[in-house]
């Protein structure tokens, strides 16, 4: 089976009707790693950014306030759980839902920050994420229309038709925009200038892990 050629031998399945969750070494590795990072985020405190000031011997310290800290930590943990879900899901539609949730909480994590440049960047990223929601869900819908299923286990055994390939490529555009990778990275990189290291970590981590998982899904469908 094709699935076994991608992430290693299937170690087990959880059949839930049409949706069949399956685990292979790749999924377990990604799932455990994201849970470790999420646990660390939940117990971590934030750093204080220190910069020397021009014209004097003073220092400029920027840190995260307590209320802001609680809001951002909560959203970061939600982002971690959503990413973990996207790593082990066996359903294409669930993957798109997790992806959309990650996009929303990514904006939420930086929207509590009181820095104009960072908020501008989050706003631009939000626009791209919203626009890319259409190809993300649209691509999944095309694949459903072409095959009659969204189960990755089933899709792996169906030979790729032109509509499936087109749907997968449309989804790729959606994932690229939602996760903010090239060529959309310029809108997202400025978001990382804010303090709150553990929280901005999960924004980057969720994007990269989504890409890794989507490469597997893409090759499974094709």
């Amino acid at each position, binding site marked *: 089976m094709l699935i076994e050629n991608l*992430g290693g031998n299937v170690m087990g399945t959880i059949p839930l009707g049409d949706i069949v969750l399956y685990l292979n*070494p790749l999924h377990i590795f990604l799932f455990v790693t994201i849970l470790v990072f999420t646990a660390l985020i939940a117990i971590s*405190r*934030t*750093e204080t950014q220190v910069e020397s000031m021009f014209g004097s011997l003073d220092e400029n310290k920027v840190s995260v306030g307590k209320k802001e800290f609680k809001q951002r930590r909560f959203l970061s943990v939600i982002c971690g759980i959503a990413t973990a879900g996207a790593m082990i899901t066996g359903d294409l539609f669930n993957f798109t839902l997790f992806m959309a949730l990650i996009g929303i909480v990514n904006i939420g994590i930086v929207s509590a920050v009181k820095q104009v440049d960072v908020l501008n960047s989050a706003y631009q990223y939000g626009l791209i994420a919203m626009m890319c929601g259409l190809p993300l869900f649209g691509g999944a819908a095309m694949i459903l229309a072409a095959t009659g299923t969204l189960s990755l286990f089933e899709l792996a055994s169906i030979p790729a038709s032109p509509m499936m390939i087109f749907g997968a490529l449309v989804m790729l555009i959606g994932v690229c925009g939602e996760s903010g990778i090239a060529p959309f990275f310029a809108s997202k990189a400025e978001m990382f200038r804010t*303090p709150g*290291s*553990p929280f901005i970590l999960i924004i980057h981590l969720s994007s990269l892990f989504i890409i*890794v998982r989507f490469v597997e899904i893409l*090759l499974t469908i094709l």
Partner: protein
Amino acid sequence: MNLMAQILINVIIAFLAGSLLLGFHRKVMARVQLRPGPPIIQYLLHSLKFFFKETTFPKTASIPFYISITVILAGIWVTGVIVGPVAKGSLMILFGIYAIHKIVEHNAGSSSGSPYGKVSCVRAVFSAAGELPLFAVIAVIFILTGTMDISGIIAYQSIHGPLIFQLPLAALMFFTLIVTKSPYSPFAITKGKEIISGFETEHFGMLRGYIMFSESIAWYILLWIFLTIFFGPISVVGYVIGMIVICIITGFINATTPMLNPNHSVMAQISIAVICTVGSIIMIII
């Protein structure tokens, strides 16, 4: 052989060989620049030395991430040894390990509170956008061979010959990735000298020891993957010669090429990735 013993032996080999290769790489760069350079064993001695130095923690650091991120780095590359030389498992897991390596660059920089680390952290986001598309090479290999398993790719090459002759553009992509991860690379924007040592600037003592230990293993694993998936089943002597030759080539490139600015670096990597991916797919179809 017992699996645990096999893992332990391979980790030790990866650390020692990786350290010596990085030392050799630095020596090549020095000789190209008409300097004597440090002894080849210097990188290994530095790595070991840091494990016995005093470890300090900045008051501004994000604890426990500041500490745990270096342990995570060491952990993922030990996993890389298990997935690669020991189990010859899936390239997808190695792709995941590389993605976490980018996360470590990001978080090690931002967790200290240092402005140099912070710039390196933002650059890590840029560089991930350039480096991860280069990993599309594994998709190209999958399209041709029908497997992501390293053992399956070796078996394919033993029948059809080395992949470097069938997918030269894909090999170029992977080689660009190797150049990117080599020390003093034109693409190493996260460690530019204008930001001191980038994300490593505030990590001292044992934490730096973990980073150097991991970088040695990472260098060895990248070279091992390149030689394994493009040159087919080769002997130990073949690996040694191949790794030394790659170090000479990358050392020469890095010694003679200035560091690119972040935008140029990312665009150059993305351009190489797109051209080589499309070119490789066309070659497969033809």
